[in-house]
């Protein structure tokens, strides 16, 4: 009975005559209103707004801005947040300040278009100019490279250890245009003994991203 009702409803929805009279989002609203609300404590988080493709996101209250640098490749920028008083832990928002080559951009675009997967060596090689040495064994101990979604946006995640700093590193590469050439990065770095401790903060922060 219920399924028949849905079928009927679907037909109605697709009928243009009904579009003018019925709210398109009625059911979505209804579903949203069903959701239990989270505890108010979440709202004490600091809010980060308008960084590249990120319209908004929140970080736990203990975190704060730690440094900001502009001028990478003339137009790039780096904004860093860190938990107060804790050295060797930070979350950075980075743009290299210039587009990558169309060849690398196409490769990035292709990698993201496929279903979520662990990247092959060939795929990583094709992305080399974008990865800042993260697939170079001399510079980075790469543990995993895979694609996945953050709030509906397909991204590339690389994890491993930066050999120069010794910091555990997770970098999210975000396609900011539609051609894979403008690449935004979010990088979480922490000393080995602190990495897991602050990981949940970073997880929450990344989950809170509202994309533009």
């Amino acid at each position, binding site marked *: 009975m219920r399924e028949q009702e*849905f079928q009927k409803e679907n037909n109605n929805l697709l009928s243009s005559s009904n579009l003018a009279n019925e709210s398109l989002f009625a059911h979505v609203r209804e579903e949203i209103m069903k959701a239990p609300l*989270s505890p108010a404590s979440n709202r004490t988080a600091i809010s980060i707004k308008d960084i590249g493709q990120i319209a908004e996101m929140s970080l736990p209250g203990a975190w704060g801005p730690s440094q900001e640098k502009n001028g990478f490749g003339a137009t790039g920028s780096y904004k860093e947040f860190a938990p107060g008083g804790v050295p060797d832990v930070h979350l950075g928002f980075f743009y290299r300040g210039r587009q990558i080559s169309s060849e690398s951009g196409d490769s990035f675009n292709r990698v993201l278009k496929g279903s979520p997967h662990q990247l092959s060596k060939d795929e990583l090689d094709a992305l080399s100019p974008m990865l800042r040495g993260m697939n170079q064994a001399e510079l980075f101990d790469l543990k995993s490279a895979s694609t996945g979604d953050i709030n509906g946006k397909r991204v590339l995640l690389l994890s491993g250890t930066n050999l120069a700093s010794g910091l555990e590193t997770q970098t999210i590469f975000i396609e900011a245009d539609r051609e894979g050439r403008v690449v935004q990065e979010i990088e979480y770095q922490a000393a080995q003994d602190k990495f897991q401790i602050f990981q949940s903060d970073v997880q929450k922060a990344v989950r809170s991203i509202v994309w533009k």
Partner: protein
Amino acid sequence: MPPESSESQLRRPSEAETEPSASALRNEALAPKVRDSETKESSFVTKSLHATDSDISALAAPKQGPKAETRKEPAKPAAASKAPELVENTPAAGAAAEVKTQSPKAPSAAEIAANAFSDYQKRMEAAFTASDANGDQYLSLGEIAAASRNAPSDQMGAYKELIENFSRIKDLKNDEWGWESQISKEDLRIYLKEQKENRSKIADIREMSNWASENYDKTDSFRDGFLSLEELTSRYNDKNISPAEKSVLGKVIANYQGLEDAHDDEFGFENDGPTKADFLAYKEQFEATAEAKSLGELDLATEKAALLEKVKNDPRFDDAARKSLQANMKDLETRAMSSNMDLKQVAETYFHARRLLDNPGTEPLSALDNALLSTQIVESAAHPERLDQGSHNTCNVNSLETVVFYKSPAVAAELIANIALSGRHLLKDGTSVAVDKDSLAKDADSLLLPTPEGARSYASQLFQIAAVNAYYAKFSPHIKYEQRASTGAGDTGERLVDYSRKPPVEVLEDGVPARHPMFAADQVFETLKILQGKAARDSVLFAAGYGYDTGRGTMLESKEEFKQTLDTLKKEGRFPVVLSVNTVMEPFWSDSGGGLAGGSGGGHVVVITDYLDGKVLCDNSWGRAKDHLSKERGIDVHDLYIAMQSRPEKAIAMLERDVKWNKENKTVDIFKEFEIVRLKRAAGQINDQSMYEQLGKAYIDTQASWEKLKAENKLDPKEQERVRKLVGQSLEGMAPDMRLALGELILRAPGEKLISPEQSKEMLARIFDSLAEGIISEGNRGSLDQGKRDTCLSYMQKIEEQLALLPDPLKEDFKKNHIRPVEEKLTAAWRLGQPQVAAKTELAAQAVRVRPARSEKNVEKQEKHEAAKPSHTAGSVKPKPSHSVSKNESKKENKSPKKSVRK
């Protein structure tokens, strides 16, 4: 081998003398000079070497000492399947590279030089014969010029040389009645003989100069800045030096007196031995003579032959790498012939490229690295427009590198080769530049082979680090510029270190380490000057704010002055020059990514390569796609002048004047109107609300003007498409609320829409999908933030209002492809949001994060396995497989009678 000239005086050890004594060499050095009675006297020539054919052989190749026989055979060439680049750094290849790479059957340097001379002689004689139209055995300038018009391209160099040196050649033999007015065969014979001798001199001088650059400090055991004969002799007798170095040292000792006299740097008599400056002056003085200036063709032919012979059997090169090198050599020679570049620049570039190949590699560089650098030097010289800054803050140094490679590639080649071989380089004023070993290690860019577009090559890494250090060595010797491995995003690895402090500290800028060269226009100018030995004031251009009017570069006060300067540079053939620009302005803002991924505008440096009909051709260091090197891609001189302003306020004022002029002349340039608003926001002159209002006004005005043009049948669809694309991009970079507000304004305002209905739908869909995904993923975790819920509901209201303004088919499409899937996901999300399910999903999601998507069949099995492991990843990425996961979960949940899933 051609016969040895009996008239030439041997002043360096011949091949027959395997190891002449140092005193014998000195005696030769101090012996009175004998000149060829037939040649004209030249003050510098008398001081320089008189080498013979047999000497040439010893010049181009290291002397084969007794140890040569014990050298290993060259390893086999690497696999030919490799891309057109050097063989990878495999142990086998490395071992091969460590051995002497010259094939035993390869012709000697003397034979190569003799063959090159023979070919050159034939070309010159052929040009003589072809030019002698009346057959009188005498050539007038007119005859040569006339013949050169029909000359084949490979003969052009010979005609060019005859024309350029006509005055000198015709006077060589007194064989005409009265004034010497034409070139006779005898004149040419003497000239060719001189050429041969001078060519061997320049080869010797190059070797001595490079020896000094690499070994001066090691030899100067008294540390007094002078090389005494005692010090030179001691080094000469050192059993550990290579035969090649011994050979060059022999030449240094033989020319001891000439060298120490070259630069006036002693009180009274020059008798303490050559200084570093003496070596440089010795070379410069010879190069300044007419004899040396005419050497281009022969010098190039000889060095080219020697380089090609060198790589012929070099196991570090496969066929593709050899072909690539040859193609770049051809491109370089074509570039040199079509410009006013001295061919000796090309010859010397090849000399340094070969010098690197001769050297087994000095820690931390390997022989393979040397071969890599050798090919990259030739490529950079052939195509300076390909040089890019990569992931470094070196647009300024990259620009000056581009200029040096364009104008005097040999200077760049020598710098790179010296740094690679010894970590040191001697500037033309005698200042020594040193680069630390760590900075010579390949970084993330230079490890990429072949160098991809936009990345910085290894050769450029060495050039750029050395160039910055050249500036500091001269002006602030306690500062060193170093390259380290990047520690993460936001760190290019560049370090500017103050060694006057103990311990050394990084130089600060605004309280934080300045991790860039700290070069404004003045420093770029000074560096160009110290590297090239000279720089015209207008070789660096900038507007106020990017330097001071101190004569170090040209500060341009107006657009007219800019145009005038460009006209002059064009007329005098003096491009390329360096230009400071501001990337917050177009076209650089769009070229950089237009703020889509964050970032902010700032100072940048590019290279102007030409000026054509009001368009300025610019080479940008962000990759070839961002160059403006064709007339079509060239930047309007007016727009470029706006982009040169360091302060957006000044650019805004200029753009406002343009817009006003447009209005008075009843035209509209929508780009400029948008640009004004964007720049005002960037400069902090307006807030988001004002930006919205001003952009809104510009949108409405444009739509109205389009409507008018449409009515007049003057609306250009191409222009419309261009503007729509721009507006679409601009909206994509805005926050969702701003996008929604402006989108609605566009849809509601009358006139031709600034964005198409399809673009509107796409924009709304992106906002909705993003919002919904945020809500869904919150739901998957069991609860929803109230603020997020309210924002979402509010946005949905606005989206719905705008959808109502779109045609029905688009609404239907939106409903089907966006709303319906979200409804389904939301329903599933709330149920998955139950605590126990949420925990399971989280673990499953984490598991997928670190592995490829799994087949549904194995999902549960893998989940169990992963659940047993501790979480390691940041959970920041929620992989879609939740396709697989949520589908699976949904199927299970569908069995529940309590919840419904719309199908």
